[in-house]
């Protein structure tokens, strides 16, 4: 069983939704942090902003990993049961 057996439209839809969501939110908050740093220019506030940015990035990445693994395991479990509901529409809705 090669990698092509697992890569289909369902997985692509799932991964694209979560990766794009994580990237958009991370980019947005990084821009907010950069603008805040540039506007405030305070040596005390700057590390706080950097810490918050780090937590936001890592939290979004962790969430993406957890949710995608959970959805993929659900897909795999349903497909193992035979038929199931592991269709593209069900994953899009998930």
């Amino acid at each position, binding site marked *: 069983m090669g990698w092509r057996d697992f890569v289909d439209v369902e997985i692509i839809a799932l991964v694209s*939704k979560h990766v794009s969501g994580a990237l958009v*939110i991370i980019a947005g908050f990084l821009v907010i942090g950069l603008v805040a740093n540039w506007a405030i220019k305070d040596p005390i506030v700057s590390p706080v902003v950097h810490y918050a940015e780090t937590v936001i990035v890592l939290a979004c990445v962790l969430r993406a990993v957890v949710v995608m693994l959970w959805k993929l395991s659900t897909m795999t479990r349903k497909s193992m049961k035979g038929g199931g509901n592991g269709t593209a529409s069900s994953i899009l809705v998930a």
Partner: protein
Amino acid sequence: MAQHPRSWLRNTLNVWLGYFLTAVAAIPASALGLFLISKGIRQQAAILVSISLAVLGGFMAEQLIALRSRKQRRLVVSASPDTAYQLSWGRPAVTAAGFIEGLSQAALAISSFEHDPAFNEETARLAAVQSAYTNDYKIIASKMFRLPTTSQQQRRVVIQVKGFKAQQGTGNEPAVRADQLTRAAALSPYFDEATAFAGLR
């Protein structure tokens, strides 16, 4: 019968909303982490606590929003044998995905809506019977067919359609109700579903 589709855009925006909530929850979690660092806890342990709290907070906030959006919305459809209908909603639950999808559906509903002033009792009966055999909808109560059929008699059908209820009874003047229907179509993303289910379209 029209069935409200769960669009790709709606689901993608819901996923993005989850990440946004996680990022928002990361702000107080960061404050807690900095507080822990100031108290002498190692930085790695503090950041692990912050990240865990941010992810958990994001999940909790997403669940809270999902629960709130599932609150039932109420749709009232008033009708008499020769006039049209009156629609009114309770407090709607607004989400980013629902708002954007609602705009697109409202545009479609306004452009394709055909107002039929003559309420046909047989049409309503057939629509109700047809709805009873649809798995996606649940009829709570239907008293319309046990009441007298005089034109002055109040007739009410209470229907629950995926988060709101529809009531049919006597209502206002046709012109007023046509205007109300148009405004209701612009306000609700479920208008197509509601009108189709009530047998109005």
